[in-house]
């Protein structure tokens, strides 16, 4: 089997160029999907029979929560590749994921709290789902702090990668917390086997928002990855040729 395509991803100049080319291809569809999703969710979709217009926060809350977990999985997978194959670019990908993931996690927590006060009657309870999501935020913070705390780049890469892989344990806990334990958080409406418990005119904008958020993540990841590669390769000769 020819592994050239895979080894090419280990080459910083190649990845730097590729990320630059891909950025607009992710960014513009992201803008289109998010605008369409917002219009569909905030204007076209009917209000919910119990929550009225309050349910519309789902169009930001649910995609942020999905993305937070998806980004963590991406980060851990990249860290894993970096650990085992000693691929520096993979460590750069993992490092670029952390900040974006922390933001999405924070957005999911804050929007959830704003929804929880009027609907549940409280901003916060120490419920399994809510606590696991808070731990995800702390994992992102811990990962970033660990990286920042070690001066040697190679050691920072490896130590933070171990933390990222170990934290992967939290991902199934977040997903299945509402099934394994009694939780105040509702079961999933969309991400489950069988049909979604939501009519089409509410569901389609939600899926558009998920698509848009995912593309947005990809676009920001490309921009951050370029910056990360620049920082790591600041003394490399290919960079002088590429930039000057």
């Amino acid at each position: 089997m020819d592994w050239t395509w895979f080894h090419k991803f280990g080459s910083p100049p190649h990845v730097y160029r590729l990320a630059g080319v891909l950025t607009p291809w992710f960014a513009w569809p992201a803008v289109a999907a998010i605008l369409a999703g917002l219009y569909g969710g905030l204007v076209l979709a009917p209000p919910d029979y119990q929550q009225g217009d309050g349910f519309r926060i789902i169009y930001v809350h649910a995609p942020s929560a999905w993305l937070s977990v998806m980004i963590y999985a991406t980060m851990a997978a990249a860290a894993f590749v970096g650990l085992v194959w000693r691929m520096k670019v993979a460590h750069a990908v993992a490092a670029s994921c952390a900040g974006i993931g922390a933001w999405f996690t924070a957005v999911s927590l804050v929007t959830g709290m704003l929804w929880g006060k009027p609907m549940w009657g409280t901003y916060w309870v120490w419920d399994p789902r809510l606590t696991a999501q808070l731990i995800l935020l702390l994992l992102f913070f811990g990962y970033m702090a660990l990286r920042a705390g070690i001066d040697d780049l190679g050691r920072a890469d490896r130590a933070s990668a171990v933390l990222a892989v170990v934290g992967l344990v939290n991902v199934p806990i977040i997903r299945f917390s509402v099934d394994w334990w009694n939780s105040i958080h509702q079961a999933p409406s969309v991400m489950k086997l069988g049909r979604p418990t939501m009519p089409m005119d509410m569901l389609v904008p939600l899926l558009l928002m998920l698509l848009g958020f995912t593309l947005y993540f990809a676009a920001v990841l490309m921009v951050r990855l370029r910056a990360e590669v620049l920082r790591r390769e600041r003394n490399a000769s290919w960079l002088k040729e590429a930039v000057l």
Partner: protein
Amino acid sequence: MTPRRRRLVLVLGILAGVSIAGALMLRSFNENVMFFFDPSQVAKGEAPVGKRFRLGGMVKPGSVQRAPGSLSLAFVVTDFKLDVPVRYEGVVPDLFRENQGVVAHGTLRGDGVFVADEILAKHDENYMPPEVARAIKEKHGGVMPVDPSKAAKEQAAR
């Protein structure tokens, strides 16, 4: 074994070890991770005795009684097998209604009445427009059935 292979085994080993440790920990903490107990668990004695805990379930249809001129409230929490009567005094959240999920925080009295000092509503995963909900309720004699999404699908199929 090549160095790469050794690293692969090492990292997978760490992940497997941490997963097993996590699973064992969550199993042994099961009772503390449980956010609430349903009436059947309370009857089986799984809820902590003599301590505050959370009781969760559905508000039984027709069981909500409000004392006029006060915030006192009495209702029954059910899991469709067993019932627990609840007393509460205070304001309830918007989503508190019959046949809806509820989580009450308080203590179980000797006579089997649960005295709550905090009521939280538990929302379910069903979303639908008000017109559909109205049509379903009319069909089911003014009460939302237990599985609203299934009813909504039947409503759409008609």
